[in-house]
């Protein structure tokens, strides 16, 4: 799971190559604070444009989606991104960079995998809010009522996908990059269950030896840091980290699986981003079944929220030799991060009652592995 990039920002330009991919329309704009339209431009840089870090806490995301409309019957327009970013630096030219998109050739790994395997037109973050609550949906199928970055403690009966798998005689691991990057699951998983953790090095070895657990969740490196005399680049793609290093990180995960032919034929790799990071997208997040929680008003800027609307759309790509080349999952099939534990539970465990409403109703995706025989050949990434 990568960090803080929207679908249109990363993959929207693919629409020019394949009109089935729901990238931004050619004439898509957002108004600036003076009401002038700001167009999408293919001018995204690997780093240097998104400082300060675009706001993506609930009140700001609400503004980005509804453009400041707080009326009872408001409709999401996806027209508030420029105005939201403008508030941070009061600079119209700078705020317009929130509408920049990458050219496909700038992200050769992500765009190649998207075109060769399956790209989701409608994978949304689970909450119109920041990282930790969104990642919680990938681990637990809920954020336990959290809509912000506060820590929390997961409580039964909703246990993590790792607990469920282990209790069912299956195996599962979270692979964090290294100890200095650590995990974003410190309070609930790392403290209490260090046995379900491994490092990026462990992941590479397990791929080589075909000893991966049934389910593996891989975390990128969250910081530029120096260790043992070496410079280690952040690979999470969180603004303002260099996006190419994240593309290379994705390539290394794909390569590790692809190099082991046995592992390749029995593994599905999902590449997904936790949330949009304040970057533009043109598809309004749909409503969803309430989660049984109500967010604290101090986390939402006073806006009532019952976890009944998804967050902004994010890139999601599914890789497997059992997927037909060039699969585009249509917009009529809506996915969110609760789709991850839903899919894993369905495949490895089967019926499992103690899940949230959101997870029970989340779409699953293994039907995309539809070929009668695994594709042969293919490609691998290498240093240029």
């Amino acid at each position, binding site marked *: 799971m990568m960090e803080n990039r929207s679908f249109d920002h990363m993959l929207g330009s693919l629409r020019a190559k394949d009109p089935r991919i729901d990238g931004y329309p050619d004439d898509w704009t957002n108004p600036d604070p003076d009401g002038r339209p700001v167009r999408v431009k293919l001018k995204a840089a690997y780093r240097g444009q998104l400082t300060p870090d675009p706001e993506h806490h609930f009140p700001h995301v609400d503004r980005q989606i509804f453009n400041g409309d707080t009326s009872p019957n408001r409709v999401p327009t996806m027209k508030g991104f420029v105005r939201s970013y403008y508030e941070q630096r009061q600079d119209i030219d700078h705020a317009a960079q929130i509408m920049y998109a990458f050219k496909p050739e700038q992200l050769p790994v992500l765009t190649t995998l998207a075109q060769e395997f399956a790209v989701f037109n409608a994978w949304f973050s689970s909450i119109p809010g920041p990282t930790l609550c969104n990642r919680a949906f990938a681990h637990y199928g809920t954020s336990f009522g959290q809509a912000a970055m506060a820590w929390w403690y997961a409580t039964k009966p909703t246990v993590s996908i790792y607990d469920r798998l282990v209790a069912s005689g299956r195996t599962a691991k979270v692979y964090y990059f290294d100890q200095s990057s650590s995990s974003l699951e410190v309070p609930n998983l790392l403290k209490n269950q260090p046995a379900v953790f491994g490092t990026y090095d462990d992941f590479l070895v397990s791929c080589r030896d075909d000893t991966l657990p049934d389910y593996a969740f891989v975390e990128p490196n969250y910081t530029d840091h120096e260790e043992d005399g070496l410079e280690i680049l952040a690979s999470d793609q969180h603004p303002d980290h260099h996006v*190419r290093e994240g593309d290379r990180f994705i*390539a290394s995960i794909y390569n590790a699986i692809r190099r082991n032919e046995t592992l390749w034929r029995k593994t599905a790799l999902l590449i997904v981003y936790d949330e949009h990071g304040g970057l533009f997208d043109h598809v309004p997040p749909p409503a969803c079944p309430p989660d049984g929680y109500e967010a604290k008003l101090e986390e939402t800027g006073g806006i009532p929220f019952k976890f009944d609307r998804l967050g902004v759309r994010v890139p999601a790509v599914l890789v497997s030799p059992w997927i037909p080349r060039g699969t585009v999952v249509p917009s009529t099939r809506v996915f969110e991060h609760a789709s991850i534990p839903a899919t894993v539970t369905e495949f490895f465990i089967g019926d499992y009652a103690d899940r949230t409403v959101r997870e029970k109703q989340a779409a699953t995706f293994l039907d995309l592995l539809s070929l009668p025989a695994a594709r042969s050949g293919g490609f691998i990434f290498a240093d240029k």
Partner: protein
Amino acid sequence: MPPRLKIIGIPRTPATAFDQHRLISDLVRNQVYQAHRELHDWWRTLGSVKPEQVQTEQQAAEYLKAVTRILHPEGTRPPAPAAAGKRTRGISLGERPRASRPARRRPRKTSRKRR
């Protein structure tokens, strides 16, 4: 490597991308505070670094490493020989290890304390 695989070349990330003195994001700041909370008693007894003192990515990395070593001692072991042969620090896409790039020593902009 399996046979008949096409090679797609991916450019390396430029060295200028590295900035260990970059101020931490809200995400990493929260990660540091979470780590501090989990080891509150330990820090009170043995630690002198407060999470609010952590400002840069390098400082955050050192802080998180100290905490993670305690929470996850298994991770302190050196990589298995096979892994060490596969990877240098940072992301490498080659099967053979490439030469490590020595860190550029820079003057410290802020004080650091290593546990």
